[in-house]
């Protein structure tokens, strides 16, 4: 049953409504949840950096192994060595947060630079960028990273460098596309005709006004990918090593216990990964729908 109703009287003009009235409820929920996750991540990162943790993440307590959440003041229980799960999860964020930011920064900076060049000037650059994009897309990211690990060393910053670089083509083609769109609509021509200096056109008019939503969304997707990469790599044993916690290696070390029916040591970090990546994905999608005026459903 679909219900449609019209209120009597004057019919309002849509674009005057503030965005939270215009947007689909679902998208607002997505963005809300996503922002919550981002807040948690940032707060945890800060806490972790200053070591403001509930307990020492390395503190082994054999009396309290695999305790369920709530036991003896351990908010999220303990792992198989009695270490506080919550503290370990918080510290685990250290493993991907800064490196993830690096990856995002690289992708956005170089991607924007390249995209602006291609969109503003080059028709010839276009083929080059397409080739470059297809080239980068030919590699599974993880395999490429393993190659880099074999050739260099399993340093998370090297790895994030690779992740960032492999995202450059995507960002640059999005920016280029936006610029071509603006060119079509004669915005840029008008600016030039009015004598606006090129730097202003690019920085203020194009990037800030038209591309910022795109860039924010790419940033959220970039962080989601960084988390995925870092956790996968540390799961495989290439990242942070025990006893330093990383969500990936936490799941791995809990594997045996999982098979014995003791799920929590593996499941807690796995759920952390799940909810965090989900948060960034939903944030990106929700923002995309709201800012582009689409509907997610």
């Amino acid at each position: 049953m679909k219900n449609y109703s019209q209120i009597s009287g004057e019919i309002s003009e849509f674009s005057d409504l503030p965005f939270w009235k215009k947007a689909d409820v679902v998208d607002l929920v997505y963005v809300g949840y996503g922002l919550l996750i981002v807040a948690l991540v940032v707060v945890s990162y800060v806490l972790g950096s200053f070591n403001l943790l509930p307990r020492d993440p390395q503190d082994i307590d054999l009396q309290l192994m695999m305790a369920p959440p709530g036991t003896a003041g351990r908010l999220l229980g303990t792992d198989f060595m009695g270490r506080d799960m919550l503290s370990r999860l918080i510290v685990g964020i250290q493993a991907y947060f800064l490196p993830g930011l690096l990856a995002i920064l690289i992708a956005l900076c170089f991607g924007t630079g390249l995209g602006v060049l291609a969109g503003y000037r080059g028709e010839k650059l276009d083929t080059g960028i397409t080739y470059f994009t297809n080239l980068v897309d030919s590699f599974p990211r993880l395999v490429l990273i393993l190659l880099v690990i074999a050739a260099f060393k399993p340093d998370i910053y090297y790895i994030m460098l690779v992740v960032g670089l492999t995202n450059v083509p995507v960002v640059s083609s999005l920016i280029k596309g936006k610029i071509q769109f603006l060119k079509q609509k004669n915005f840029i021509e008008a600016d030039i005709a009015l004598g606006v200096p090129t730097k202003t056109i690019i920085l203020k008019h194009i990037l800030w006004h038209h591309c910022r939503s795109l860039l924010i969304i790419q940033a959220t997707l970039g962080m989601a990918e960084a988390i995925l990469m870092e956790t996968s790599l540390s799961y495989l044993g290439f990242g942070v090593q025990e006893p330093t916690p990383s969500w990936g290696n936490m799941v791995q070390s809990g594997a045996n216990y999982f098979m014995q029916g003791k799920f929590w040591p593996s499941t807690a970090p796995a759920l952390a990964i799940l909810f965090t990546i989900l948060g960034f994905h939903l944030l990106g999608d929700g923002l995309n729908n709201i800012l582009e005026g689409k509907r997610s459903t």
Partner: protein
Amino acid sequence: MTTAPILKIEDLRTYFYSRSKQAFIRSVDGVSLEITKGETLGVVGESGSGKSITALSILGLISAGPGVVSGKIGFKSDRIQKNLLQDLGDFVKLTTRDGKIMEVSKDVVGWERNAERVMSKVRGKEIAMTFQNPKSSLNPFTSVGKQITEAIRLHTSMKTEQEAKERALTWLDRVKIDSPRLRFDNYPYGLSGGMCQRAMIAMALASEPSFLIADEPTTGLDATIQSKIVDLLVELKSELGITTMLISHDISIISRLSDSVAVMYGGTVFEYGPAKHILSTGFESKHPYTSALLASIPSEQNIREKGYLQAIEGDVLDTINIPEGCRFYSRCNRVTGKIREKCARQEPDLREIGSGHKVRCWLYFD
């Protein structure tokens, strides 16, 4: 008219909903029309008047919500007879306030299922339709010939590929497409706009329907091609005598092909009657809109008389904000003091003023 109507539309309403304005777009707001067997009804009006939506409503091709909300479409052919909107009331609940529908509650999925059941025996077989934009209205992934044979095999007694192909070729020839055998295997992108329109006409007629709806068959085509298509339609009309509903905003094609004319504006029918009455120049009892429309046609006579192109003042009706009273009131140049109150406050109904001529205007009733 002693012959029974083949199609009788009664008080059809098709609404859409604008989420951004939180209001209904009343594209078809109470349309009643009748077409008798063998007759060609020309439906003329500006864009936005609801003519295409009316046609789509007949065939149940409205997909946006809420769609058809009320009305009756009686259809009678040699083979079947039914109300194409039967049981609509079971799926729709309307709430009116101040005489206007303000709330619609519709079981969209249920109605679609019901409509599919009813229309599946009608579409293509009894009623066929051709569309504007012939190039985009044909499947770009299939050859033109295959699309015609599909229609033939679905709706006529020719079920084999071979028979159907022969019949399709005959039709391609009949619509004056050169080298039919070659064109049969062409894809729509390889055909010009005019040829695609001819192919669509062939496709529609090849399934031997009782009723043809032609929606803007010449719009978007080059002027020279336009007249050729009209020539073709005139020929087919005299050859086949098929009952037709011709929709166009181009009065010249309406005048060449129609037996009766319906003038639509703002979602309703303003005037309806025999073509020779409605389309003749000179005043006679005609709706002010119709007169103004005819006067605005750039023709030699008009320009000689006036010396300039005559447009109709004002803007086309906004089908969201429909005013009280006559829909044409704000643009009408024939309002008199006597009827001004009525024109502003009350919408006239469509009334017969003699020999099958109906008008919706206070000027003509007392």
